[in-house]
């Protein structure tokens, strides 16, 4: 059965069940889980920023379990080589006396890849990962090896220990669909985490969704309808983060070094569509845009020193841009009930 023939509502139901399975394992971190699922539907990649021990690995493993996907985890270190990541060609001897070269795939050949502490690897290794993320294939000795579909990289960064790290180049950060900030759990969540983690049995997500359903959802997400005004708003928001534009909000012009480009607007729109689909709607809305605004754009807006000095974050500038874009949608006061 092709993905076109699978009833999309059944796929959405399947994803909802997978979400429930993940929630059985992970306490809290709802936003991170939802955004990871949306990124999966958008075939995007996620950069997760948070201190160690917040369940980042568990989120990815549970997602893989629930969706019946192959999972791999790569701990990035300064001495990690690109071949450690993508694989290498090795000399092998067959059954006869023939000696040949055999490609040994690296850990990147998985559906869900957790690139832990990506900023600890050298730029060369980072570049290899980011190239694979973008092209969804690996080329070794002139031969291309396609990566499995679906393919999602969840890279983590530790914001505390920056010494000895190689911060990701701004151009490469742009390749991540979302940047998710994982926060510390609250007291109630902490109690529930203790209950679950200190027991005799370890909770594990059950596989409830087939790979084909996921691929069908990925296709369906792109077919969700976005009305022209939604597209215009997404474009306005992205452009409104660019400091060189005269119609950008004042704070953007003052504090931003550069803003989101076309890739940011694409991420915004696609993620909004995926969110609408997961919400069992076939049309994206402004609420969808609002929900994914910060994770989709916060890593695409760079601030200048003045902003850093004054405690202005990219979130502030994105909020300004969104407010300006929403204001452009306002109706004439004559037909606005609230005057």
């Amino acid at each position: 059965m092709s993905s076109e023939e699978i009833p999309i509502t059944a796929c959405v139901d399947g994803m909802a069940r997978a979400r429930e399975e993940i929630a059985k394992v992970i306490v809290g971190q709802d936003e991170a889980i939802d955004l990871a699922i949306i990124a999966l539907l958008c075939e995007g990649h996620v950069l997760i920023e948070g201190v160690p021990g917040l369940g980042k690995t568990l989120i990815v493993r549970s997602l893989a379990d629930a969706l019946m996907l192959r999972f791999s985890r790569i701990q990035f270190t300064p001495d990690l080589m690109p071949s450690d990541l993508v694989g290498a060609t090795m000399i092998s001897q067959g059954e006869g006396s023939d000696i040949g070269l055999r490609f040994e795939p690296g850990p990147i050949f998985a559906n869900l890849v957790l690139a832990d502490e990506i900023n600890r690897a050298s730029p060369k290794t980072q570049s290899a990962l980011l190239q694979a993320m973008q092209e969804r294939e690996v080329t070794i000795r002139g031969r291309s090896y396609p990566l499995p579909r679906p393919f999602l990289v969840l890279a983590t960064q530790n914001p505390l220990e920056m010494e000895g790290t190689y911060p990701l180049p701004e151009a490469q950060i742009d390749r991540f669909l979302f940047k998710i900030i994982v926060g510390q759990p609250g007291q109630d969540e902490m109690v529930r985490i203790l209950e679950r983690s200190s027991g005799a049995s370890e909770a594990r997500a059950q596989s409830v969704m087939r790979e084909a359903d996921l691929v069908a959802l990925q296709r369906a997400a792109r077919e969700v309808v976005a009305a022209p005004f939604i597209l215009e708003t997404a474009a306005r928001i992205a452009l409104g983060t660019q400091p060189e534009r005269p119609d950008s909000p004042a704070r953007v012009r003052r504090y931003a070094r550069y803003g989101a480009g076309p890739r940011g607007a694409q991420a915004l729109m696609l993620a909004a569509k995926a969110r609408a689909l997961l919400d069992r709607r076939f049309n994206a809305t402004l609420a969808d845009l609002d929900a994914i605004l910060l994770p989709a754009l916060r890593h695409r807006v760079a601030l200048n020193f003045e902003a850093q000095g004054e405690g202005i974050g990219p979130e502030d500038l994105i909020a300004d841009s969104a407010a300006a874009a929403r204001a452009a949608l306002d109706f004439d006061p004559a037909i606005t009930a609230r005057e």
Partner: protein
Amino acid sequence: MLDGMRRSIGRSRSRLNALIATHRALAWAAPASLAAGLLAALLRALGFSLGAYALLACLTAAAAAAGALRSRKAFLDEAGAARWLDESLGECGLISAALDGLERGGEGRFDPAIAEAAEALLPRAARLRGPMGPLLRRAAIAAAALALGAYMVFLSAPLESSTAARRERGARAGTGAGQERRTAAKAVLEEGGPAAADFASSLFPDDRRMATLVERALREGRLDDLRELLKAAGLELDSKIARSIDELERKKLTKEKERLGEAAAELSMAAGDEASRGEAEGGRGAGGRGEAGPGAQGGLFAEGSGGAGDSRPGSEADAEQAEGGAAARGGKGYGAGSGSEGEWGRVETAASHERLELGAEEKGSFFELVLPGGSAAAPVSKLAPASRRAAEAAMTRESLPLEYEDFVRSYFLALSKGEKR
């Protein structure tokens, strides 16, 4: 399905655009009404004969039409109307998405499902009429502005009619009163007796003492004394006019003086003093400015005050200026400066920082009248402020010769410094 949806959205669009146009028309009409009302009232008050209410109505209507035309820029297109329906129905852009899908030919995977869902909303959408609150508020403001504009026009009407009526009444009254006085003057000189009392009372209705003196002079046929009395009254009025800082009061006093002058002239005419008549008229004509024309001595009331420089009490320098000013104007003047001499005799004044004193060396009829005790004294602190105000007002009106202004100013400044000391 497409037609039904398009029709429904189109109807909503028409209603909303009508609301926008009306709202904008009212928004433009309100200030235009006020401005038109003000303009019409102003033109009417200035005497332009035009249909003030028609002007108000035309300008308001023109502004409303301009506003409505201007509102075309804010008109909603089909997508805008669909978005408004979505927002009003709280349906998360379903109608917009359906319209978009249908415009694309409905070939999308989810287009039919969206169109079906949107179609179910159409009955609810058809019931939406657009918010009336903003429109009503705007209409109330516009109506109030129009009413205010009309009221301004209305107010300008009685002003115009009352001015004209007053002018007419004044003209009638002036002619009538003049005739009456002329007849009365003739009767007084011919008959004397009770007519003299009536004439004197009509000249000085508020001053019994003056009325008595005039009556007595008339009865006894002392025309010289009568002339002196009228001259003194005229001088007093001049003094009051010079001191007055209230424009209305000044006008009233000036009219009173004119009336006195007219009465004196009529009396002169009645007495057969034809030679002095023209001269008296000359003096009367310039009475408002307190200047006498040349040869104004012959009439009963042809005195001339000699200009503003004559009346100020002060130093020797004042006196010189006063005399100079009087001479320049050809009038006699009654200069109060030290050493100046009028026909009433020599007057001595002495001013210090504390007191101003006025006395007469020789007693005459004039000083019996104006200074019954023979002299007068008043604290400078009481006199100076009023005089200073009068001088300032005179300078403001440019009724003081330019060459005297510095002098007058420095004089009062010196007086103020003396007071402070």
